[in-house]
């Protein structure tokens, strides 16, 4: 019992830090991207009144982002920041999975896997129809 308590504590500490630094890293990247974007496009006109739906799957999107990053495009750097922001909670779940596994709490290993599966479904449902 004593052993388990200590491990829960460690988990809280690591997850707390993960969330904090994840958010700050993501937002710093997005801010840099924002500055680059503004410097290059400040006088352009915006066109956000009408929504243009486009189905791009996430793998394609990551590939496009990498291409844009090579050219140092502002929007690509912002998108990298946003992707890092999405990764923060995902990493948190992956870390919980490992922690529950080490605590031998197999019920929660199963629950965590189920949540991961649902998020994977959202990647699958999000494109191609």
């Amino acid at each position, binding site marked *: 019992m004593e052993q388990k308590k200590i491990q829960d*504590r460690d*988990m*809280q*500490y690591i*997850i*707390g*830090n993960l969330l*904090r630094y994840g*958010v700050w890293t*993501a*937002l710093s990247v*997005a801010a840099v*991207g*924002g500055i680059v*974007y*503004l410097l290059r*496009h*400040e*006088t*352009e*006109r*915006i066109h*956000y*009144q*009408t*929504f*243009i*739906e*486009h*189905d*791009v*799957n*996430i793998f394609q*999107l990551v590939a496009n982002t990498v291409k844009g990053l090579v050219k140092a495009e*502002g929007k*690509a750097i*912002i998108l990298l*920041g*946003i992707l890092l*922001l*999405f990764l*923060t*909670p*995902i990493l*948190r*779940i992956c870390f*919980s999975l490992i922690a529950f596994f080490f605590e031998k*709490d197999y*019920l*929660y290993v199963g*629950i*965590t896997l189920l*949540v991961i599966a*649902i*998020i994977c*479904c*959202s*990647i699958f*449902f*999000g494109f191609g129809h």
Partner: protein
Amino acid sequence: MTVLTFTLIMFLGALCAGFVGSLSGLGGGVVIIPLLTVLLHVDIHYAIGAALVSVIATSSGSAAAYVKEGITNMRLGMFLEIATTAGAVGGALLSAIAPAPFIAILFGFALIFSAINSLRKKEEHHVEVSSDLALKLKLPSTYPTPSGLMAYGTKNVLGGFSMMALAGVLSGLLGIGSGAFKVIAMDNIMKIPFKVSTTTSNFMMGVTATASCVIYLQKGYIEPGICMPVVIGVLLGAMTGAKILVKVNPKKLRIFFAVVIIGLAFNMIYNGIVDNI
């Protein structure tokens, strides 16, 4: 409007939204959507995308502190995330086919509900005996209080789970954290102490929002040019709000902001009905 003007207006608007969201306890995401759609005539899909990205930032940022203090019940959060993520995926898929005026009207009603709920007097629940299912799922836990660790029980697991699924659908459909609905599920239905339910709700928002955001991203809701000023502005505004919240008595402020927010909500509903969204 040029990119520079739009970005500056957005940034200032997001700062205010984060500030008001944090003081009123409703979250910055719900305030930014009316601002974007009603005032700046941005399409509601882009507004939802930007708002939900900012929800991930603010909720993860504030969850970090509570997790470290051991107030957040991580097992409870993890278990209920099954319901919220499944709901969020459904909600995000619905938002792609739902017409914009419908989303605006539903958003208005959710906003009015949350604002009124934020004014309701909170009664502290404390149950000692837990239901069998709660025990099996190891949901009862302890949280730190000034007089040492306090143990609490949990009830109505299935009821809370269903309410969480609804919270997830609303989050994915409307681009909000739907904290008010999450807290109702834990506080009113599962009888979990208020401090634990608010912090655990915050903890769950990041994962729930990410589940819908992945869909939003692939459908093109997430426009970097809008997200950047919104996310940074909302987070800075929320941090400022949190600092002020410690110093002032929030009761009067809450009533004031709730009235402002209900006004915004009626505006959204009106614009949805006359098809101006």
